[in-house]
């Protein structure tokens, strides 16, 4: 009986030893062998750059040409300088009142909107470069019907209308608040100056609001469906004249997708209303420092 008990204990001991040996031979335990490379909610990306990290300066011009006129030879109805800092992922929109009374190279002093009618976008660009002491890299020109088409092709634009606007001339008829506007309504919102307290300055500011609204919507839609990038580019390119190569337009769109709307400043050149030769004009204040800050760091203090 004693002999049997000794045998059983010895067997049990050897069995335990055997299982330990088995574990060592087989390697690691269950827990540590679970796949440890599960990737959840990870994200990566690579975005091409436009001209490296240097700030990019684009002049956006809205021509007031009528359908039978060449947009590049019409009066500039809206003028915005957009400075983008790719590195800082921010931008500033500098609105230039169209009635600004400035020196036009080779053509004396006149309203800035006349520069394009005299010498096309190149003369308008030279006028602003001289006014601000800056260099403008690219320009984009659209017309009333171009803007309308552009907005309609992207399915309308959600804009925050800052105050009630009712103006029979521009056909603006909006209550205050966030609303989805069709192309013709965006045009009316951008053109109205009669229902604004600060006239031409307010109109220029509203033009900047349209750019910021477009950026906000672009980013939102892009998050839902990345292919909207090309749809927006297509809508823009069909409705604009620009010296931006298509390749840079794509890079610029990628860059814009990475700029939060709250990192975009919307400023208007300061000045005062006046008159010259029977015309109502805007006499600009000291604007060189604004242009300098904008072009250096895409930010105006």
């Amino acid at each position, binding site marked *: 009986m004693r002999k049997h008990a000794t045998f059983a204990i010895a067997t049990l001991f050897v069995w335990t030893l055997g*299982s330990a040996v088995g574990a060592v031979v087989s390697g*690691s335990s269950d827990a540590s062998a679970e*796949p440890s*490379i*599960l990737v959840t*909610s990870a994200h990566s990306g690579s975005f091409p750059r436009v001209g490296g990290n240097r700030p990019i300066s684009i002049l956006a011009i809205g021509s007031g040409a009528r359908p039978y006129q060449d947009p590049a030879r019409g009066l500039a109805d809206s003028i915005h300088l957009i400075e983008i800092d790719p590195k800082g992922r921010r931008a500033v929109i500098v609105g230039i009142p169209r009635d600004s009374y400035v020196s036009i190279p080779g053509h004396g002093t006149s309203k800035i909107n006349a520069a394009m009618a005299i010498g096309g976008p190149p003369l308008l660009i030279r006028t602003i470069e001289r006014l601000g002491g800056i260099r403008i890299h690219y320009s984009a020109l659209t017309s009333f*019907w171009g803007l309308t088409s552009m907005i309609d092709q992207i399915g309308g634009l959600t804009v925050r209308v800052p105050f009630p606007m009712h103006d029979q001339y521009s056909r603006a008829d909006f209550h205050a608040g966030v609303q989805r506007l069709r192309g013709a309504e965006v045009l009316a919102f951008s053109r109205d100056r009669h229902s604004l307290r600060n006239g031409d300055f307010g109109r220029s500011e509203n033009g900047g609001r349209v750019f910021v609204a477009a950026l906000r919507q672009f980013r939102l839609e892009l998050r839902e469906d990345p292919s909207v990038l*090309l749809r927006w580019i297509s809508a823009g390119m*069909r409705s604009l004249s620009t010296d931006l190569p298509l390749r840079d337009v794509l890079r610029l769109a990628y860059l814009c997708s990475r700029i939060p709307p709250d990192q975009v400043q919307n400023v208007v050149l300061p000045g005062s209303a006046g008159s010259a030769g029977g015309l109502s004009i805007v006499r600009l204040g000291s604007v060189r420092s604004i242009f300098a800050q904008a072009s250096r760091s895409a930010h105006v203090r």
Partner: protein
Amino acid sequence: MSPARPSARSSLIAVSIVLVAAVAFGAWVLRPETQGVGPVAQPPPPEHTPRFAFAVGRTGALPTTQLRIRKPVHYDPLLRLRGPSRAASRHTIASITRLYREAFLDPANWRAGAYDSAWHDLASAAGRQARRDLRVMTAGAAAGEAYLSISPRPSTIRTTVLLDRNGAPAFVMATVHFRALGRALAGTSNTMFESVGTFSLEHAGRRWVVVSYDVRRSDHRVEKPLPTSSVAATPSAESTP
């Protein structure tokens, strides 16, 4: 000194046999389920790359030609692919298929955790970034230690071609939803790889190369089927373009 009795010698031999048998039996019965870590227990790995192709969804081309008519246009002008734009779309699908095949399905790559062949159709900057994003862009550097096999599951791709002002294809954007099942060597669950990505391609000489990408991964675990049920890892599609 008297010689050992035959009966005692027999008992000693019997006890020795029982002890050796007990050691062997214990080692066999109580071994952990992590078979496959040791080279003897591991079934022979499939060395071929599973056949794979994306199911192609909506494709089309977008023009950039300036509008000649001077009145507002209200429609979305997605055009049918034809000629060069169709070829551009096909090249793109082939490039992205190759990328995912090399990054997830080729056993030679994921077993070694080396994916250099996956970046063949990426422009230099995108390729550099992809090498840094190995964890998101591929099955992972440690996939060889974790998986028995990786097989494709139904995956989709759609392409949009942007035409330049002369009507020639300038860019292609591919939107991809890729899925593959990684059968784990151990544990109770497998891994479903899920990769949703957007790739922009530009024409470079005779090729279309990826100049930018935006890829999101959201893998999840799926329970392993019971041992009695038969498991067949089926490729998602017929053939590889």
